[in-house]
Each structure stands twice: as structure tokens, then as C-alpha cells.
């Protein structure tokens, strides 16, 4: 076995991961909150009013980062689902299933904030155009993965079935991303581009990118916390989990 595989096995062993995740998660939560607060201040107070959309455009600072996270979380889930199916690594199953509710939360926020932005700008809460519809499909895919995972009694079998569904749903990702290019939609085209020039002033761009960074860090914070909880439940018969439960009990009554 090469060194990378060995390293992965060590990190991937449940007690080790539980410990490391427990040490990292509070830092991630803290950094996410601080960055998020800075981004909110920049977006709500410092950034100037948009000459076309007035102050309504400020919804972009939560809408767009959450939309990115909806796609990012799905990609992360799909990669782990693939690893779980091919190599049957327990930790990958857990990571895949832990990212589903976080991605669903971000997608839900995207849809609601988009609706709140659409009403004053387009005059409607909802329209069945390509971007909105594919985003709704993304939410349903997340809910399908979560539902399937909870519907099957055996947790490991459930994770594999749900991982399979997650992989099939990957086809929706390019549809969401390119929907504004492929179809003539009511939704505006992309403002920020990794390659090439962004169509936004820097005073508006930095709060947006800061919030994007904050939501990424938040994703990992929530992921670690969820994975820890899931590991405890999955390994509840094992010695190391009993140890944690007993230590907690001793602490509560001591």
C-alpha cells in the first residue's frame, strides 16, 4: 500500500476521525461566523446601492454563495458516494450522507432568497424557467437521498443505496450551471466568473467572495459535526463509543 492510502486509513478510522473532527469543528464554526459577519457588514452597509436594482440587489450576498454551496455540497457528496460505492470506505459513506442535509439547506435558502429577489425585480415569486426548475430538481435530489438513507433499516446498506441515487443526480449539476446559457431564461446570467472578468464592482465583489468563503468553511464545520454524530450512532456497539458515553455520564454525575 502506498503512503497516501495508509494515511487515509488512519484518518478514516472512526475513533481518529471523531477526535480530529471534534478538534477542528469549533474552529471552522468560529471562522465561518467571523467571516460571515464581515461579509454581512460589507454587503449590507459598505457596498453601494445598485443603479438598476436599488437595494434589492443586496440579496445577492446570500443568494449566490448559497447557490454555489448547493452545487459544491452535491459535488462533495457525489465524490464521496463514488468512493463509498467502489472502495466501501465507511467514512466516505458517512461524509456523503452528512453533506446531503447541508446541501439541501443551502439549496432551500437559494430558492427562498431567489423568490424574495424575483418578486420585486421580475414581478413574480416563481416561474418555471430552466434555472429555477433545475435548482428545484437539485433540492428534490437532496431530499431523495436523505429520504432513501432513512428509509432503509441497515445504515450501511442505506448509505450505499442513497450514494447510488446521488451519483445518478450528478447529471443535474451541469444543467443548473449552464441553464442560463443554454436557455433563454428570466434569471440573469452569471455575474462572477472564475475565468475571465467579473461583471461587478470590487466594492460589491469582496463581500460576495467573503461570504462565499464563509459558507465553504461553514459547510465543513457542519459536515464535521454531522459526521461525528453519525459515527457515534453507527458505531454505538464499539468499545471507543462506550468509552465516550461513560466518560460523559461520569462527567454529568461527578
Amino acid at each position, binding site marked *: 500500500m502506498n503512503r497516501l492510502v495508509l494515511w487515509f486509513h488512519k484518518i478514516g478510522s472512526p475513533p481518529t476521525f471523531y477526535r480530529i473532527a471534534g478538534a477542528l469543528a469549533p474552529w471552522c*464554526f468560529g471562522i465561518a461566523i467571523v467571516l460571515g459577519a464581515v461579509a*454581512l457588514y460589507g454587503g*449590507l*452597509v459598505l457596498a453601494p*446601492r445598485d443603479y438598476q436594482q*436599488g*437595494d*434589492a440587489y*443586496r*440579496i445577492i450576498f*446570500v*443568494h449566490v454563495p*448559497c447557490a454555489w454551496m448547493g452545487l459544491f455540497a452535491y459535488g462533495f457528496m457525489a465524490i464521496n458516494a463514488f468512493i463509498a460505492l467502489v472502495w466501501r470506505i465507511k467514512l466516505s459513506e458517512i461524509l456523503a450522507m452528512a453533506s446531503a*442535509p*447541508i446541501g439541501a*439547506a443551502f439549496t*432551500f*435558502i437559494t430558492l*427562498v*432568497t431567489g423568490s*424574495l*429577489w424575483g*418578486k*420585486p425585480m421580475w414581478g413574480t415569486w416563481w416561474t418555471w424557467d430552466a434555472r429555477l426548475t433545475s435548482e428545484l430538481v437539485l433540492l428534490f435530489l437532496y431530499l431523495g437521498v436523505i429520504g432513501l438513507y432513512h428509509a432503509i433499516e441497515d445504515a450501511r446498506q442505506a448509505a450505499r443505496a442513497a450514494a447510488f441515487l446521488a451519483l445518478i443526480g450528478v447529471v443535474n449539476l451541469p444543467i443548473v450551471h449552464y441553464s442560463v446559457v443554454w436557455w433563454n431564461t428570466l434569471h440573469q446570467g452569471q455575474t462572477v466568473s472564475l475565468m475571465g472578468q467579473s461583471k461587478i464592482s470590487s466594492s460589491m465583489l469582496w463581500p460576495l467572495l467573503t461570504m462565499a468563503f464563509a459558507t465553504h468553511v*461553514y459547510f465543513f*464545520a*457542519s459536515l464535521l*459535526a*454531522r459526521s*461525528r*454524530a*453519525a459515527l*457515534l*450512532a453507527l458505531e*454505538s456497539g464499539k468499545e471507543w*463509543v*462506550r468509552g*465516550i*458515553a*461513560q466518560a*460523559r*455520564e461520569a462527567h454529568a454525575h461527578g
Partner: protein
Amino acid sequence: MAEFLHMGGYGAYVWAAYTVFVVVLFADALMPLWQRRNTLREIDARLRRESNRKSTP
């Protein structure tokens, strides 16, 4: 301050969007804490049942 809350007439939309963002993520962050506590309680109860069974012949 009132002008800030007013958001050029779009206050209701902007603040509703930010509220949804904060509330949903807050709920998301609480869920694993709650899950973890429940799991540990269940394990605890099971361990106690097991030790009771052992001590009563």
C-alpha cells in the same frame, strides 16, 4: 437607521432573505448537537440496562 432598515423600499424582501439565511443555517448547526446528545443518551441507557441485568442474578 430607519433608512438602513427601509433599504430603499425593498426592506421587507432584503431582511426576509437575510433572516431565512441565518435561521436555516442556525437550525442546521444545531441539528448535529441534538443528534449527538440523543445517541449518547441511548447508549447510556443501554449500558445501564446491561449492567443492571448483570447485577441481578
